[in-house]
Protein backbone atom coordinates (compact mmCIF):
# COMPACT_ATOMS: atom_id res chain seq x y z
CA UNK A 1 0.00 0.00 0.00
CA UNK A 2 2.65 2.46 1.09
CA UNK A 3 4.87 1.27 -1.74
CA UNK A 4 2.06 1.79 -4.25
CA UNK A 5 1.66 5.34 -3.06
CA UNK A 6 5.35 6.07 -3.48
CA UNK A 7 5.47 4.50 -6.95
CA UNK A 8 2.54 6.62 -7.97
CA UNK A 9 4.31 9.76 -6.71
CA UNK A 10 7.43 8.88 -8.72
CA UNK A 11 5.38 8.20 -11.84
CA UNK A 12 3.58 11.52 -11.46
CA UNK A 13 6.83 13.39 -11.05
CA UNK A 14 8.14 11.87 -14.28
CA UNK A 15 4.93 12.64 -16.11
CA UNK A 16 4.98 16.28 -14.98
CA UNK A 17 8.62 16.57 -16.02
CA UNK A 18 7.64 15.36 -19.48
CA UNK A 19 4.81 17.93 -19.60
CA UNK A 20 7.24 20.69 -18.65
CA UNK A 21 9.69 19.59 -21.32
CA UNK A 22 6.95 19.63 -23.98
CA UNK A 23 7.21 23.42 -24.31
CA UNK A 24 10.87 23.04 -25.20
CA UNK A 25 10.00 20.29 -27.66
CA UNK A 26 7.43 22.55 -29.38
CA UNK A 27 9.89 25.43 -29.54
CA UNK A 28 12.49 23.08 -31.03
CA UNK A 29 10.01 21.73 -33.60
CA UNK A 30 8.94 25.23 -34.66
CA UNK A 31 12.51 26.39 -35.20
CA UNK A 32 13.61 23.10 -36.75
CA UNK A 33 10.84 22.95 -39.35
CA UNK A 34 10.95 26.62 -40.29
CA UNK A 35 14.74 26.48 -40.63
CA UNK A 36 14.57 23.18 -42.53
CA UNK A 37 12.19 24.68 -45.07
CA UNK A 38 13.64 28.16 -45.30
CA UNK A 39 17.38 27.85 -44.77
CA UNK A 40 18.33 25.85 -47.91
CA UNK A 41 17.17 28.74 -50.10
CA UNK A 42 19.65 31.08 -48.38
CA UNK A 43 22.48 28.77 -49.54
CA UNK A 44 20.98 28.22 -52.96
CA UNK A 45 20.50 31.82 -54.04
CA UNK A 46 22.74 33.57 -51.53
CA UNK A 47 21.82 35.37 -48.32
CA UNK A 48 22.49 38.80 -49.77
CA UNK A 49 20.19 38.14 -52.73
CA UNK A 50 17.39 37.47 -50.26
CA UNK A 51 17.79 39.99 -47.46
CA UNK A 52 19.31 42.72 -49.63
CA UNK A 53 17.53 41.89 -52.88
CA UNK A 54 15.01 44.36 -54.23
CA UNK A 55 13.05 42.17 -56.59
CA UNK A 56 10.44 39.65 -55.40
CA UNK A 57 9.36 37.42 -58.29
CA UNK A 58 9.56 33.99 -56.68
CA UNK A 59 8.33 32.10 -59.74
CA UNK A 60 11.11 33.68 -61.83
CA UNK A 61 13.87 33.08 -59.32
CA UNK A 62 13.99 36.47 -57.58
CA UNK A 63 13.59 36.28 -53.82
CA UNK A 64 14.55 39.77 -52.64
CA UNK A 65 12.71 40.79 -49.47
CA UNK A 66 14.64 43.95 -48.62
CA UNK A 67 11.66 46.24 -49.33
CA UNK A 68 9.50 44.12 -47.01
CA UNK A 69 12.07 44.26 -44.19
CA UNK A 70 12.19 48.05 -44.52
CA UNK A 71 8.37 48.23 -44.73
CA UNK A 72 7.96 46.08 -41.61
CA UNK A 73 10.20 48.44 -39.68
CA UNK A 74 8.44 51.51 -41.11
CA UNK A 75 4.95 50.42 -40.06
CA UNK A 76 6.22 49.34 -36.64
CA UNK A 77 7.93 52.66 -36.10
CA UNK A 78 4.89 54.52 -37.43
CA UNK A 79 2.62 52.63 -35.06
CA UNK A 80 4.92 53.41 -32.16
CA UNK A 81 5.17 57.12 -33.04
CA UNK A 82 1.37 57.41 -33.26
CA UNK A 83 0.37 55.03 -30.47
CA UNK A 84 3.06 55.19 -27.79
CA UNK A 85 2.66 58.85 -26.68
CA UNK A 86 -1.12 58.47 -26.43
CA UNK A 87 -0.82 55.18 -24.57
CA UNK A 88 1.78 56.58 -22.17
CA UNK A 89 -0.35 59.68 -21.53
CA UNK A 90 -3.31 57.42 -20.88
CA UNK A 91 -1.31 55.23 -18.47
CA UNK A 92 0.08 58.28 -16.66
CA UNK A 93 -3.38 59.79 -16.33
CA UNK A 94 -4.78 56.53 -15.01
CA UNK A 95 -2.09 55.94 -12.43
CA UNK A 96 -1.32 59.51 -11.29
CA UNK A 97 -4.37 61.68 -11.90
CA UNK A 98 -7.48 59.52 -12.10
CA UNK A 99 -9.62 58.99 -9.04
CA UNK A 100 -10.22 55.55 -7.65
CA UNK A 101 -13.59 55.30 -9.38
CA UNK A 102 -12.29 56.25 -12.84
CA UNK A 103 -9.45 53.79 -12.37
CA UNK A 104 -11.76 50.90 -11.54
CA UNK A 105 -13.81 51.57 -14.66
CA UNK A 106 -11.12 52.46 -17.18
CA UNK A 107 -8.47 49.84 -16.41
CA UNK A 108 -10.73 46.82 -16.94
CA UNK A 109 -12.33 48.33 -20.04
CA UNK A 110 -8.87 48.84 -21.55
CA UNK A 111 -8.05 45.22 -20.81
CA UNK A 112 -11.27 44.08 -22.42
CA UNK A 113 -10.44 46.12 -25.52
CA UNK A 114 -7.05 44.45 -25.77
CA UNK A 115 -8.99 41.35 -26.76
CA UNK A 116 -10.68 42.80 -29.85
CA UNK A 117 -9.53 40.60 -32.75
CA UNK A 118 -6.97 42.30 -34.97
CA UNK A 119 -9.05 41.59 -38.08
CA UNK A 120 -11.71 43.91 -36.67
CA UNK A 121 -9.16 46.74 -36.48
CA UNK A 122 -8.13 45.96 -40.05
CA UNK A 123 -11.71 45.98 -41.27
CA UNK A 124 -12.55 49.32 -39.67
CA UNK A 125 -9.29 50.63 -41.10
CA UNK A 126 -10.49 49.72 -44.60
CA UNK A 127 -13.92 51.23 -44.04
CA UNK A 128 -12.97 54.48 -42.31
CA UNK A 129 -9.24 55.26 -42.33
CA UNK A 130 -8.30 54.29 -45.90
CA UNK A 131 -11.06 56.45 -47.54
CA UNK A 132 -10.28 59.31 -45.14
CA UNK A 133 -6.61 59.31 -46.18
CA UNK A 134 -7.55 59.00 -49.85
CA UNK A 135 -9.82 62.04 -49.63
CA UNK A 136 -7.66 64.23 -47.43
CA UNK A 137 -4.18 63.55 -48.83
CA UNK A 138 -4.74 61.77 -52.14
CA UNK A 139 -3.10 58.54 -53.24
CA UNK A 140 -4.69 55.11 -53.04
CA UNK A 141 -5.44 55.34 -49.32
CA UNK A 142 -3.99 51.88 -48.74
CA UNK A 143 -0.70 53.11 -47.38
CA UNK A 144 2.05 53.29 -44.81
CA UNK A 145 0.01 55.95 -43.01
CA UNK A 146 -3.18 53.85 -42.90
CA UNK A 147 -1.24 50.82 -41.64
CA UNK A 148 0.55 52.87 -38.99
CA UNK A 149 -2.74 54.34 -37.76
CA UNK A 150 -4.43 50.93 -37.54
CA UNK A 151 -1.45 49.31 -35.80
CA UNK A 152 -1.02 52.38 -33.57
CA UNK A 153 -4.61 52.01 -32.32
CA UNK A 154 -4.16 48.25 -31.98
CA UNK A 155 -1.16 48.56 -29.67
CA UNK A 156 -2.80 51.23 -27.45
CA UNK A 157 -4.28 48.78 -24.93
CA UNK A 158 -1.07 46.71 -24.74
CA UNK A 159 1.22 49.67 -24.06
CA UNK A 160 -1.24 51.44 -21.75
CA UNK A 161 -1.84 48.36 -19.66
CA UNK A 162 1.85 47.44 -19.18
CA UNK A 163 3.03 51.03 -18.62
CA UNK A 164 0.23 51.48 -16.08
CA UNK A 165 1.34 48.38 -14.19
CA UNK A 166 4.92 49.61 -14.09
CA UNK A 167 3.85 53.11 -12.95
CA UNK A 168 1.84 51.50 -10.16
CA UNK A 169 4.93 49.68 -8.84
CA UNK A 170 6.66 53.01 -8.12
CA UNK A 171 6.52 53.31 -4.32
CA UNK A 172 4.13 55.95 -2.94
CA UNK A 173 7.01 57.27 -0.79
CA UNK A 174 8.76 58.58 -3.93
CA UNK A 175 5.74 60.68 -4.80
CA UNK A 176 5.19 61.85 -1.23
CA UNK A 177 8.84 62.82 -0.90
CA UNK A 178 8.71 64.90 -4.03
CA UNK A 179 5.40 66.56 -3.18
CA UNK A 180 6.63 67.29 0.36
CA UNK A 181 9.55 69.23 -1.09
CA UNK A 182 7.07 71.52 -2.82
CA UNK A 183 7.12 70.04 -6.33
CA UNK A 184 3.88 70.26 -8.31
CA UNK A 185 2.19 67.08 -9.37
CA UNK A 186 3.53 67.34 -12.93
CA UNK A 187 7.07 67.94 -11.66
CA UNK A 188 6.69 64.84 -9.51
CA UNK A 189 5.41 62.77 -12.41
CA UNK A 190 7.99 64.04 -14.88
CA UNK A 191 11.07 64.04 -12.66
CA UNK A 192 10.34 61.20 -10.23
CA UNK A 193 7.62 58.75 -11.24
CA UNK A 194 8.30 58.40 -14.98
CA UNK A 195 12.09 57.96 -14.55
CA UNK A 196 11.48 55.38 -11.81
CA UNK A 197 9.19 53.40 -14.10
CA UNK A 198 11.39 53.93 -17.16
CA UNK A 199 12.44 50.33 -17.77
CA UNK A 200 8.87 49.02 -17.54
CA UNK A 201 7.67 51.72 -19.93
CA UNK A 202 10.43 50.91 -22.42
CA UNK A 203 9.58 47.21 -22.15
CA UNK A 204 5.93 48.06 -22.91
CA UNK A 205 7.06 49.94 -26.05
CA UNK A 206 9.12 46.95 -27.16
CA UNK A 207 6.19 44.59 -26.56
CA UNK A 208 3.96 46.95 -28.54
CA UNK A 209 6.52 46.88 -31.35
CA UNK A 210 6.54 43.09 -31.19
CA UNK A 211 2.79 43.04 -31.58
CA UNK A 212 2.90 45.52 -34.49
CA UNK A 213 5.68 43.80 -36.42
CA UNK A 214 4.05 40.39 -35.98
CA UNK A 215 0.56 41.50 -37.02
CA UNK A 216 -0.55 39.98 -40.29
CA UNK A 217 -4.21 40.04 -41.29
CA UNK A 218 -5.00 43.62 -40.28
CA UNK A 219 -1.92 44.78 -42.20
CA UNK A 220 -2.88 42.87 -45.35
CA UNK A 221 -6.24 44.63 -45.31
CA UNK A 222 -4.95 48.22 -45.18
CA UNK A 223 -1.36 48.19 -46.52
CA UNK A 224 -2.07 47.79 -50.23
CA UNK A 225 0.62 45.08 -50.42
CA UNK A 226 2.70 46.70 -53.19
CA UNK A 227 6.20 45.30 -53.72
CA UNK A 228 8.33 48.38 -53.11
CA UNK A 229 9.77 50.59 -50.46
CA UNK A 230 7.24 53.37 -49.79
CA UNK A 231 8.81 56.73 -50.49
CA UNK A 232 6.04 58.69 -48.79
CA UNK A 233 3.54 57.83 -46.04
CA UNK A 234 0.82 57.75 -48.69
CA UNK A 235 2.32 54.90 -50.72
CA UNK A 236 1.30 51.25 -50.33
CA UNK A 237 3.72 48.64 -49.00
CA UNK A 238 4.04 44.95 -48.12
CA UNK A 239 5.42 43.69 -44.80
CA UNK A 240 7.21 40.41 -44.05
CA UNK A 241 4.15 38.95 -42.34
CA UNK A 242 1.72 39.84 -45.10
CA UNK A 243 4.11 38.44 -47.71
CA UNK A 244 3.87 35.04 -46.00
CA UNK A 245 0.12 35.11 -45.54
CA UNK A 246 -0.68 36.41 -49.04
CA UNK A 247 1.16 33.64 -50.88
CA UNK A 248 1.38 30.61 -48.58
CA UNK A 249 -1.88 29.04 -49.71
CA UNK A 250 -0.75 28.50 -53.31
CA UNK A 251 3.06 28.59 -53.21
CA UNK A 252 5.09 25.51 -54.17
CA UNK A 253 8.76 24.57 -54.50
CA UNK A 254 11.28 27.39 -54.11
CA UNK A 255 8.44 29.88 -53.84
CA UNK A 256 7.17 28.16 -50.70
CA UNK A 257 10.73 27.91 -49.33
CA UNK A 258 11.11 31.65 -49.89
CA UNK A 259 8.09 32.26 -47.64
CA UNK A 260 9.78 30.22 -44.91
CA UNK A 261 12.96 32.27 -45.49
CA UNK A 262 10.79 35.35 -44.93
CA UNK A 263 9.61 33.69 -41.70
CA UNK A 264 13.22 33.14 -40.58
CA UNK A 265 14.02 36.84 -41.08
CA UNK A 266 10.88 37.76 -39.12
CA UNK A 267 11.84 35.37 -36.29
CA UNK A 268 15.34 36.86 -36.08
CA UNK A 269 13.90 40.39 -35.82
CA UNK A 270 11.43 39.32 -33.12
CA UNK A 271 14.19 37.57 -31.17
CA UNK A 272 16.35 40.68 -31.24
CA UNK A 273 13.40 42.77 -29.97
CA UNK A 274 12.76 40.28 -27.15
CA UNK A 275 16.44 40.28 -26.17
CA UNK A 276 16.36 44.08 -25.94
CA UNK A 277 13.20 43.96 -23.80
CA UNK A 278 14.75 41.33 -21.52
CA UNK A 279 17.94 43.36 -21.24
CA UNK A 280 15.96 46.36 -19.99
CA UNK A 281 14.00 44.31 -17.49
CA UNK A 282 17.19 42.64 -16.18
CA UNK A 283 18.98 45.97 -15.85
CA UNK A 284 16.10 47.20 -13.73
CA UNK A 285 16.52 44.22 -11.39
CA UNK A 286 20.28 44.70 -11.24
CA UNK A 287 20.03 48.44 -10.56
Amino acid at each position, binding site marked *: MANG*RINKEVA*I*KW*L*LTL*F*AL*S*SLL*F*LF*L*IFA*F*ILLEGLPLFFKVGTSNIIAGFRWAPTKGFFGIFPMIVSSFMVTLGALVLGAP*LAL*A*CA*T*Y*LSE*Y*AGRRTKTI*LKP*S*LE*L*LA*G*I*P*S*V*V*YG*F*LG*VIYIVPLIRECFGGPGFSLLATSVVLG*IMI*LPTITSISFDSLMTVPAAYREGSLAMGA*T*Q*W*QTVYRVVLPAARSGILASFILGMGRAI*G*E*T*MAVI*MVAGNALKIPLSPLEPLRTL*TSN*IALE*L*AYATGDHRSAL*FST*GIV*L*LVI*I*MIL*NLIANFWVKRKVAG
Partner: protein
Amino acid sequence: MRINPRVANRLVTAGLTFQALFTVSILILIIVIIFVKGFSNVTTEFIFSYPEDMGRHGGIFPSIISTIFLCLLSIAFATPLGVGTAIYLTEYTRESSLTRIIRFGVESLAGIPSIIYGLFGFIFFVIKLKMGWSLLSGTLTIMIMVLPTIIRTSEEAIKAVPKNLKMVSFSLGATKWETVTRVILPSAAPGILTGIMLSIGRAVSETAAVIFTMGSSLRLPTSLFDSGRTMAVHFYILAREGISMEKAYATALVLVCSILVINVIAYYTMHRMIAKYS
Protein backbone atom coordinates in the same frame (compact mmCIF):
# COMPACT_ATOMS: atom_id res chain seq x y z
CA MET B 1 11.61 81.89 -20.41
CA ARG B 2 10.50 79.59 -17.60
CA ILE B 3 6.87 78.71 -17.38
CA ASN B 4 5.40 78.99 -13.93
CA PRO B 5 5.35 75.41 -12.53
CA ARG B 6 1.77 75.83 -11.37
CA VAL B 7 0.62 76.91 -14.81
CA ALA B 8 2.57 74.07 -16.38
CA ASN B 9 0.94 71.66 -13.96
CA ARG B 10 -2.54 72.84 -14.95
CA LEU B 11 -1.74 72.66 -18.67
CA VAL B 12 -0.31 69.16 -18.40
CA THR B 13 -3.19 67.89 -16.30
CA ALA B 14 -5.63 69.14 -18.91
CA GLY B 15 -3.51 67.69 -21.71
CA LEU B 16 -3.20 64.28 -20.12
CA THR B 17 -6.89 64.11 -19.30
CA PHE B 18 -7.71 64.99 -22.89
CA GLN B 19 -5.32 62.36 -24.29
CA ALA B 20 -6.63 59.68 -21.95
CA LEU B 21 -10.22 60.49 -22.92
CA PHE B 22 -9.22 60.48 -26.60
CA THR B 23 -7.58 57.07 -26.31
CA VAL B 24 -10.48 55.51 -24.48
CA SER B 25 -13.02 57.06 -26.83
CA ILE B 26 -11.25 55.66 -29.93
CA LEU B 27 -11.51 52.21 -28.44
CA ILE B 28 -15.10 52.66 -27.33
CA LEU B 29 -15.97 54.05 -30.76
CA ILE B 30 -14.74 50.79 -32.32
CA ILE B 31 -17.13 48.78 -30.18
CA VAL B 32 -19.98 51.22 -30.83
CA ILE B 33 -19.49 51.11 -34.62
CA ILE B 34 -19.53 47.31 -34.61
CA PHE B 35 -22.69 47.25 -32.47
CA VAL B 36 -24.58 49.87 -34.45
CA LYS B 37 -23.71 48.50 -37.88
CA GLY B 38 -24.03 44.85 -36.96
CA PHE B 39 -27.02 44.89 -34.66
CA SER B 40 -29.82 44.87 -37.23
CA ASN B 41 -28.27 41.95 -39.10
CA VAL B 42 -27.74 39.63 -36.17
CA THR B 43 -30.91 37.57 -35.94
CA THR B 44 -31.54 34.09 -34.64
CA GLU B 45 -31.72 33.05 -38.27
CA PHE B 46 -28.24 34.49 -38.90
CA ILE B 47 -26.83 32.52 -35.99
CA PHE B 48 -28.56 29.22 -36.71
CA SER B 49 -28.57 28.99 -40.49
CA TYR B 50 -25.97 27.91 -43.03
CA PRO B 51 -24.18 30.41 -45.27
CA GLU B 52 -25.25 30.56 -48.91
CA ASP B 53 -23.34 31.88 -51.91
CA MET B 54 -19.94 32.12 -50.09
CA GLY B 55 -21.53 33.93 -47.16
CA ARG B 56 -23.33 36.58 -49.20
CA HIS B 57 -26.60 35.29 -47.77
CA GLY B 58 -27.63 33.06 -44.92
CA GLY B 59 -25.92 32.72 -41.56
CA ILE B 60 -22.76 31.62 -39.83
CA PHE B 61 -23.86 28.48 -37.97
CA PRO B 62 -20.98 26.23 -39.22
CA SER B 63 -18.46 28.96 -38.31
CA ILE B 64 -19.82 29.22 -34.79
CA ILE B 65 -19.58 25.44 -34.39
CA SER B 66 -16.07 25.38 -35.91
CA THR B 67 -14.97 28.09 -33.50
CA ILE B 68 -16.41 26.21 -30.52
CA PHE B 69 -14.79 22.93 -31.59
CA LEU B 70 -11.42 24.58 -32.13
CA CYS B 71 -11.52 26.31 -28.72
CA LEU B 72 -12.73 23.32 -26.73
CA LEU B 73 -10.28 20.89 -28.30
CA SER B 74 -7.21 23.12 -28.14
CA ILE B 75 -7.98 24.06 -24.53
CA ALA B 76 -8.62 20.39 -23.66
CA PHE B 77 -5.09 19.58 -24.87
CA ALA B 78 -3.37 22.71 -23.60
CA THR B 79 -4.83 22.77 -20.07
CA PRO B 80 -3.34 19.50 -18.73
CA LEU B 81 -0.01 20.27 -20.42
CA GLY B 82 0.09 23.85 -19.18
CA VAL B 83 -1.16 23.25 -15.65
CA GLY B 84 1.13 20.19 -15.40
CA THR B 85 4.09 22.34 -16.42
CA ALA B 86 3.13 24.99 -13.87
CA ILE B 87 2.82 22.36 -11.10
CA TYR B 88 6.21 20.94 -12.05
CA LEU B 89 7.86 24.36 -12.05
CA THR B 90 6.38 25.47 -8.74
CA GLU B 91 6.04 22.30 -6.65
CA TYR B 92 8.24 19.53 -7.99
CA THR B 93 11.55 21.20 -8.57
CA ARG B 94 13.88 23.90 -7.32
CA GLU B 95 15.17 26.77 -9.41
CA SER B 96 17.88 25.22 -11.53
CA SER B 97 19.33 25.59 -14.99
CA LEU B 98 16.60 23.22 -16.24
CA THR B 99 13.76 25.40 -14.94
CA ARG B 100 15.51 28.45 -16.36
CA ILE B 101 15.68 26.77 -19.76
CA ILE B 102 12.01 25.72 -19.55
CA ARG B 103 10.97 29.25 -18.58
CA PHE B 104 13.05 30.65 -21.42
CA GLY B 105 11.29 28.22 -23.77
CA VAL B 106 7.86 29.33 -22.54
CA GLU B 107 8.79 33.02 -22.88
CA SER B 108 10.08 32.42 -26.40
CA LEU B 109 6.88 30.61 -27.41
CA ALA B 110 4.89 33.56 -26.08
CA GLY B 111 6.87 36.00 -28.24
CA ILE B 112 6.43 34.17 -31.54
CA PRO B 113 3.94 35.95 -33.84
CA SER B 114 0.89 34.01 -34.95
CA ILE B 115 1.86 33.90 -38.63
CA ILE B 116 4.94 31.87 -37.62
CA TYR B 117 2.62 29.42 -35.84
CA GLY B 118 0.64 29.34 -39.08
CA LEU B 119 3.80 28.56 -41.09
CA PHE B 120 4.85 25.85 -38.64
CA GLY B 121 1.40 24.26 -38.36
CA PHE B 122 1.13 24.28 -42.15
CA ILE B 123 4.45 22.57 -42.83
CA PHE B 124 4.43 20.21 -39.81
CA PHE B 125 0.84 19.15 -39.16
CA VAL B 126 -0.78 19.80 -42.54
CA ILE B 127 2.02 18.64 -44.86
CA LYS B 128 4.58 16.47 -43.01
CA LEU B 129 2.16 14.63 -40.73
CA LYS B 130 -0.38 14.56 -43.58
CA MET B 131 -3.26 15.78 -41.43
CA GLY B 132 -4.34 18.15 -44.18
CA TRP B 133 -6.29 21.34 -43.56
CA SER B 134 -8.27 20.00 -40.65
CA LEU B 135 -9.72 20.66 -37.24
CA LEU B 136 -6.90 18.49 -35.83
CA SER B 137 -4.08 20.54 -37.41
CA GLY B 138 -5.75 23.76 -36.22
CA THR B 139 -6.27 22.38 -32.72
CA LEU B 140 -2.65 21.29 -32.27
CA THR B 141 -1.30 24.59 -33.62
CA ILE B 142 -3.54 26.67 -31.34
CA MET B 143 -2.71 24.38 -28.42
CA ILE B 144 0.98 25.30 -28.75
CA MET B 145 0.11 28.96 -29.23
CA VAL B 146 -1.94 29.28 -26.02
CA LEU B 147 0.30 27.06 -23.90
CA PRO B 148 2.49 29.94 -22.59
CA THR B 149 -0.59 31.87 -21.39
CA ILE B 150 -1.91 28.87 -19.45
CA ILE B 151 1.52 28.06 -17.96
CA ARG B 152 2.15 31.64 -16.81
CA THR B 153 -1.27 32.30 -15.27
CA SER B 154 -1.31 28.86 -13.59
CA GLU B 155 2.15 29.44 -12.17
CA GLU B 156 1.10 32.79 -10.73
CA ALA B 157 -2.08 31.26 -9.30
CA ILE B 158 -0.23 28.35 -7.68
CA LYS B 159 2.40 30.69 -6.22
CA ALA B 160 -0.38 32.77 -4.65
CA VAL B 161 -1.72 29.81 -2.63
CA PRO B 162 -0.73 30.44 1.02
CA LYS B 163 2.20 28.28 2.26
CA ASN B 164 0.45 27.23 5.47
CA LEU B 165 -2.34 25.43 3.57
CA LYS B 166 0.36 23.26 2.01
CA MET B 167 2.13 22.72 5.34
CA VAL B 168 -1.08 21.59 7.02
CA SER B 169 -1.70 19.10 4.24
CA PHE B 170 1.83 17.66 4.51
CA SER B 171 1.63 17.49 8.29
CA LEU B 172 -1.53 15.40 7.98
CA GLY B 173 0.53 12.84 6.06
CA ALA B 174 -0.64 13.69 2.55
CA THR B 175 1.77 12.99 -0.27
CA LYS B 176 2.89 15.72 -2.63
CA TRP B 177 0.39 14.72 -5.35
CA GLU B 178 -2.46 14.51 -2.82
CA THR B 179 -1.53 17.98 -1.62
CA VAL B 180 -1.44 19.26 -5.20
CA THR B 181 -4.80 17.81 -6.21
CA ARG B 182 -6.74 18.34 -2.97
CA VAL B 183 -5.28 21.59 -1.65
CA ILE B 184 -3.28 23.55 -4.20
CA LEU B 185 -5.32 23.10 -7.37
CA PRO B 186 -8.72 23.88 -5.76
CA SER B 187 -7.28 27.07 -4.25
CA ALA B 188 -5.59 28.07 -7.49
CA ALA B 189 -8.60 27.19 -9.66
CA PRO B 190 -9.87 30.76 -10.29
CA GLY B 191 -6.43 31.89 -11.46
CA ILE B 192 -6.08 28.87 -13.73
CA LEU B 193 -9.57 29.55 -15.10
CA THR B 194 -8.50 33.11 -15.96
CA GLY B 195 -5.66 31.71 -18.05
CA ILE B 196 -8.04 29.30 -19.77
CA MET B 197 -10.53 32.07 -20.58
CA LEU B 198 -7.78 34.32 -21.97
CA SER B 199 -6.60 31.40 -24.11
CA ILE B 200 -10.11 30.80 -25.42
CA GLY B 201 -10.27 34.49 -26.29
CA ARG B 202 -7.04 34.17 -28.25
CA ALA B 203 -8.25 31.09 -30.09
CA VAL B 204 -11.53 32.81 -31.01
CA SER B 205 -9.85 35.93 -32.39
CA GLU B 206 -6.94 34.20 -34.15
CA THR B 207 -6.87 34.32 -37.94
CA ALA B 208 -3.34 33.90 -39.34
CA ALA B 209 -2.50 30.69 -37.49
CA VAL B 210 -5.94 29.14 -38.09
CA ILE B 211 -6.45 29.85 -41.79
CA PHE B 212 -3.29 27.91 -42.83
CA THR B 213 -3.89 24.93 -40.55
CA MET B 214 -7.64 24.50 -40.36
CA GLY B 215 -8.39 25.87 -43.81
CA SER B 216 -11.54 27.77 -44.63
CA SER B 217 -14.17 25.24 -45.70
CA LEU B 218 -17.67 26.57 -45.10
CA ARG B 219 -19.10 23.15 -44.26
CA LEU B 220 -19.84 21.97 -40.75
CA PRO B 221 -16.87 19.89 -39.54
CA THR B 222 -18.04 16.42 -38.50
CA SER B 223 -14.70 14.80 -37.77
CA LEU B 224 -11.23 15.81 -36.61
CA PHE B 225 -9.99 15.53 -40.18
CA ASP B 226 -12.54 17.95 -41.65
CA SER B 227 -11.61 21.50 -42.51
CA GLY B 228 -13.64 24.30 -40.98
CA ARG B 229 -13.87 28.08 -41.00
CA THR B 230 -13.87 29.87 -37.65
CA MET B 231 -15.79 33.12 -37.18
CA ALA B 232 -12.59 35.20 -37.29
CA VAL B 233 -11.51 33.57 -40.57
CA HIS B 234 -15.00 33.92 -42.02
CA PHE B 235 -15.06 37.59 -41.08
CA TYR B 236 -11.61 38.12 -42.60
CA ILE B 237 -12.67 36.51 -45.88
CA LEU B 238 -15.98 38.41 -46.02
CA ALA B 239 -14.24 41.71 -45.43
CA ARG B 240 -11.09 41.14 -47.51
CA GLU B 241 -12.90 39.82 -50.55
CA GLY B 242 -15.68 42.36 -50.18
CA ILE B 243 -18.32 39.63 -50.24
CA SER B 244 -20.89 41.34 -48.07
CA MET B 245 -20.45 44.29 -45.72
CA GLU B 246 -23.68 43.57 -43.84
CA LYS B 247 -22.67 40.00 -43.14
CA ALA B 248 -19.15 41.14 -42.25
CA TYR B 249 -20.48 43.59 -39.66
CA ALA B 250 -22.88 40.99 -38.29
CA THR B 251 -20.11 38.40 -37.99
CA ALA B 252 -17.86 41.00 -36.36
CA LEU B 253 -20.57 41.72 -33.80
CA VAL B 254 -20.96 38.06 -32.86
CA LEU B 255 -17.17 37.75 -32.72
CA VAL B 256 -16.64 40.85 -30.58
CA CYS B 257 -19.51 39.92 -28.24
CA SER B 258 -18.08 36.47 -27.64
CA ILE B 259 -14.64 37.93 -26.92
CA LEU B 260 -16.07 40.53 -24.54
CA VAL B 261 -18.06 37.90 -22.63
CA ILE B 262 -15.01 35.63 -22.41
CA ASN B 263 -12.79 38.48 -21.21
CA VAL B 264 -15.35 39.65 -18.64
CA ILE B 265 -15.42 36.12 -17.18
CA ALA B 266 -11.59 36.04 -17.18
CA TYR B 267 -11.41 39.42 -15.46
CA TYR B 268 -14.06 38.51 -12.91
CA THR B 269 -12.39 35.23 -11.91
CA MET B 270 -9.01 36.96 -11.66
CA HIS B 271 -10.43 39.51 -9.25
CA ARG B 272 -12.06 36.83 -7.16
CA MET B 273 -8.63 35.24 -6.88
CA ILE B 274 -6.95 38.50 -5.90
CA ALA B 275 -9.69 39.31 -3.38
CA LYS B 276 -9.33 35.86 -1.85
CA TYR B 277 -5.63 36.11 -1.05
CA SER B 278 -4.92 39.74 -0.33
